[in-house]
């Protein structure tokens, strides 16, 4: 299927389906990298669903902040939702990278530890927990709001 054939509804359905895949992946700690990847795809699909509602222009990059701006979802949100959505998007964008699909578990661990060293964190478990918890909470919020404001 060529990309240009994707309709807004396709992206929307894909987003919800990837979210279901994510919930399944999260049951197994060994699948964490693919779970992060899957969460990012789910968010990206939701944002692309909104973008495709009003334009056929395709943004080939995977920067969630930029896709969020283009989606214009913020116009459907009240002030407190807007604040929370923006924070969720930026939190997700920090960990999400389209190249995660090529990232081995060891490389991911090294990337995380370098971030820890920069942030002067000492406790690995605490750092990992906060990174993952914030990321998946953000994903839940983005998809939930995307679904709620659809149509």
């Amino acid at each position, binding site marked *: 299927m060529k990309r240009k054939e994707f309709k807004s509804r396709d992206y929307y359905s894909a987003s919800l389906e990837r979210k279901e895949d994510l919930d399944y992946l999260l049951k197994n700690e060994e699948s964490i990298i693919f779970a992060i990847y899957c969460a990012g795809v789910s968010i990206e699909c939701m944002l692309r669903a909104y973008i495709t509602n009003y334009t056929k222009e395709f943004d080939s*990059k995977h*920067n969630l*902040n*930029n896709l*969020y*701006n*283009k989606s*214009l979802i*913020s*116009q459907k949100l009240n002030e407190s939702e807007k*604040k929370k959505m*923006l*924070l969720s*998007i*930026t*939190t997700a964008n*920090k960990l999400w990278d389209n190249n995660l699909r090529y990232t081995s578990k*060891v490389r991911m*661990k*090294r990337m995380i*530890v*370098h971030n*820890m*060293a*920069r*942030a*002067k964190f*000492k406790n*690995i478990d605490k750092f990992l927990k906060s990174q993952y918890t914030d990321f998946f909470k953000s994903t839940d919020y983005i998809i939930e709001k995307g679904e709620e404001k659809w149509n």
Partner: protein
Amino acid sequence: MELIDKIKEILSELKLENPIFDLNYDKSKNIFGYIYDPIYEGDEDERYQKEIWECLKNGLSTEEFVKILSIIPENKDERLKRVFNSTPLEKITHKFFMHETPEKDKYWVIIDVTKTEDAHKAIMILSNYNRKINQANQLIYSKEMIEFMELNQEDIYDELVTNAYNNIEGKLVADLMKRHNDIESKGVFGKENRFLYTYQDFHLASIAEKEIYFDNTEIQFFEDWYHVLDEYSIIDDLKKRVEVSKMKLKLTQEIKPSS
């Protein structure tokens, strides 16, 4: 006044150190964009965003405020990733790096890795006295962190020094971007802007030790870091180059004709 200019003016109340604004209009004249500033290196996104939001809410009318889609605070790494869409990872074999700009000032970079009883450490020094930059950063990796990274003894140095290089190159690029943007804000665009290369093919190059000569101010700058570098092997090479530079400066003075 354009809304973007008004936003920049209002956000100056945030007392940022050295901000770079990257704000744009979309087709419906909504505003979106980013603010880079060194203070955003910390891990307090929620607070940074709240401050920006509150500041704009207080300074803009309701009609203006609803035009803002997002203004996102970003740190150096996030900015580089967004602008260049990648973070380079390559094997680093040198410890001294130098970049001379089209304005003939020099950025010096020193990186090294050492092992102490409790941890591995990576040091990064960036210096350019014309830009009033003389900073050292140290990354500390505990035994637990090294173990978690699943690194063999022989891989530790490469992994840590590469990361240090990427970090410090990012800081240098951030300053070059700032210079590019300062020139652009004076109406100099495209190829006319002598710092355009920052966005095109910039790569921080190493310098062979025998080619390193410092001037008097650079010598002072580096001597200030001796105490920090004491536990790194690079200290011997640096001291040697400082001494050679001093000798060269002395000889240069001596051959000047008397007037």
